[in-house]
């Protein structure tokens, strides 16, 4: 299978990425991380440039590595902004570091006058496989009692879309629509990989993909993700389709070639060529997939309700599953005198961070430690930090979240089970 497939796809994907960094600027401007300062902007420039190079196929290998590093770095600055689709892009670019995708239609080939090579089938397949994993795990995660039997959280989200034209005040308010969309979404996620893999159902599946993602884009503020997924699913089509699409581009490029009177590269004589680093890459890619397959399952290692404690929730393709809100304030107490005061979160966090912190245990603990060391530096003695935290999950009444008797400074940050989170009082069954 020709790599042209991937070329096209990257083109579209990068196009979408151009928009994303712009979006990042705005909220990084607000970010409380100031130590990176102006360097953050440079990082975005690097990230954007490398993505441009990837799209053109110029110095592909080094570009994708830089892209992977810069993009992931940006994401790692602040987990407040964690989104599954950013993680997806990081993973994908990591995967692409090991795939020799710079062949047909790439500048690398043009400049070195090399003939375009066929890429090994496994490289394309690995990307397909990755997409399948995502969809499948996302579907699996939807098999839970809240999603299927309470239509939660869709029955909270959809009615609030009353301001949409036509469907807003009619369909979106209907209970059966919430259930239809819950079940539909679950089946879509579980089945779409197979529909895309099967040649016969592929074009229908693609229509479904477009419909599903455009629809979710209309309903929810999910940025570029739907477009990325739509374009990425093109990879399932065979190369004929891609050539067709690309021929439109070719007309344009041919025109430029004539104008600039550039010599045409050696023509498309398809030569099989063994890529030397294959075995090494293959090994890493296999490891990557093992990791991808196991990581989402880590939540089973933890006791307690996953949606409540969120242990193993991130990096697991659990998307749009929970509507969670919290309110958490911290009490700084002097263990000797017993005197205490509450912290005004606004002194330390942006509103967005405060929102994310209020219901996610790892945020709460990290912030508690931050407060502890902050007030320690300010000269407070015998500091204990307690959280007064209430969280509401999927429309349930809010309940106390953190055990208010436990000094959070005694709890170390680790991957171990959070014993200081109070148990969930209801039950959610399923994955």
């Amino acid at each position, binding site marked *: 299978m020709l790599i042209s497939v991937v070329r096209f796809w990257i083109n579209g994907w990068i196009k979408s990425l151009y928009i994303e960094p712009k979006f990042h600027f705005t909220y990084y401007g607000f970010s409380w991380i100031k130590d990176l300062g102006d360097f953050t902007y440079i990082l975005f420039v690097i990230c954007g440039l490398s993505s441009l190079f990837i799209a053109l196929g110029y110095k592909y290998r080094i570009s994708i590595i830089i892209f992977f590093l810069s993009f992931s770095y940006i994401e790692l600055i602040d987990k407040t902004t964690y989104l599954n689709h950013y993680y997806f892009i990081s993973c994908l670019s990591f995967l692409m570091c090991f795939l020799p995708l710079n062949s047909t239609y790439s500048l690398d080939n043009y400049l070195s006058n090399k003939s375009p090579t066929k890429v090994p089938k496994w490289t394309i397949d690995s990307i397909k496989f990755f997409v399948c994993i995502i969809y499948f795990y996302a579907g699996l995660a939807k098999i839970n009692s809240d999603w299927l039997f309470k239509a939660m959280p869709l029955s909270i989200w959809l009615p609030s879309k009353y301001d949409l034209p036509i469907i807003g005040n009619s369909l979106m308010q209907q209970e059966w629509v919430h259930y239809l969309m819950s079940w539909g979404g679950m089946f879509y996620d579980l089945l779409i990989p197979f529909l895309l893999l099967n040649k016969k159902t592929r074009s229908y599946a693609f229509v479904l993909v477009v419909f599903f993602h455009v629809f979710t884009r209309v309903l929810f503020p999910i940025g570029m993700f739907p477009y990325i997924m739509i374009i990425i699913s093109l990879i399932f089509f065979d190369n004929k389709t891609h050539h067709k699409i690309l021929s439109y581009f070719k007309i344009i490029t041919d025109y430029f070639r004539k104008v600039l009177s550039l010599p045409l590269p050696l023509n498309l004589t398809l030569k099989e060529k063994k890529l030397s680093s294959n075995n090494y890459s293959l090994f890493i890619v296999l490891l990557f997939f093992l990791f991808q397959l196991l990581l989402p399952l880590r939540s089973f290692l933890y006791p307690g309700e996953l949606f409540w404690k969120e242990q193993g929730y991130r990096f697991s393709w659990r998307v749009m599953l929970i*509507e969670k809100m919290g*309110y958490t304030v911290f009490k700084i107490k002097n263990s000797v005198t017993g005197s205490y*005061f509450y912290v005004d979160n606004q002194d330390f966090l942006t509103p967005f961070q405060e929102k994310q912190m209020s219901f996610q245990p790892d945020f709460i603990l990290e912030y508690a430690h931050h407060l502890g060391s902050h007030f320690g530096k300010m000269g407070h003695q015998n500091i204990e930090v307690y959280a007064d935290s209430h969280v509401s999950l999927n429309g349930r009444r809010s309940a106390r979240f953190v055990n208010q008797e436990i000094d959070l400074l005694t709890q170390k940050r680790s991957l171990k089970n959070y014993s200081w989170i109070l148990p969930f009082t209801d039950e959610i069954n399923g994955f």
Partner: protein
Amino acid sequence: MFRKFILLLLLVFFVTCSKDSDNLVEDDLVENSLTDSSSENGNETDSSSEAGNKTNFNRESMLTFWADSLIIPSQIKFEKEMQILDESIIEFAKTTNKESLNSVRLNWLKAYKAWQHIEMFNIGKAEEIYYPFRMNIYPVNSARVENNVSKRIENIENPNDYSCQGFPALDYLLFGLNSDQEELLKKYTTVDPSNDNNNYMNYLLIVSNKMLELTNTVVIDWQTYRNTFIASTENTMTSSINKFTNDFIYYYEKGFRANKIGIPAGVFSGGVLPDRAEAYYKKNVSKELSLEALKAITNFFIGKPFGDNNSETGISFKHYIEFFETKKDGISLAELILKQFDLSKESINKLNDDFTIQLDNNKMDMLITYDIIQKAVVLMKVDMLQAININVDYQDADGD
């Protein structure tokens, strides 16, 4: 072949969905002791017509009620009180004696109480001109006031002067200059030889006049802003329904809970800060003002038309929550919030009229009051916002 497959898929969707709504309907049927579940279609219409009522919540009429029966009338009422206060201050300047001073003091308290009903309306023009910040930032910066007085500062538009104007500044000027009335009056009668005038009177007039001017601006603007306010029913960060909900909760949390109770009680500082109490110089009205603010909050929440004790309640938060809230065991969310308002009122009532005395005697009661008030913050910020699914004022960011 693949067509069949698609059809099959659609069929699967359909069957599962209708099965699912069956389950739902059956639950309801048990309650209604209906047994006829033979026709699937019939059941579906049942459930959709039940849910169909849900579409009928008229946000525009809620906003209209807010504007016409709550916001505008209370602002006009306040404007009137402010007018009276300003006139009495002008009178006090003409004839400076005990009687005119007492009249000013009385009108100050009346206006201050009326103010408690409108501080939460930080939207539109009020937000634009920092109205609440120019009317009621306390503690007053008394040193800066003294400086403004002695330097005969005329222009108090600088944000640094926000803590030198409004009610807290009047509090200082009318009660804080001296605890003895005779002595205080002397401050207003001593003529500054350099300008043949009284500096305190001069500043008192400036502050009062500015308050009236700002109030007029806001009231006049509502005449045109009303229609914009009412029309903005969509669910976005800037729609009036969302903004106002945020303002309301923010006021409860900050203006009421923190400023009036929490900060003086030392909730955020460890030690008590009695000088942060509202009306610190007047002393014995901090409780009265807090209760007035809570009354305003409660009335707004249940939709009690302003200044009208007889007519029925209109549509407000209570109804909005009830409309969205799916059945939960026992007491409804709106009831829970109202119950918490009641408990807060009870608890404030137990405090001393003068919060500074209360803090001297027993700060624990004030801390307990704070905790009771706090509970409604959780109910509103977490449960209520989730129930009505209104975005809080966070930065706009993608979700996934």
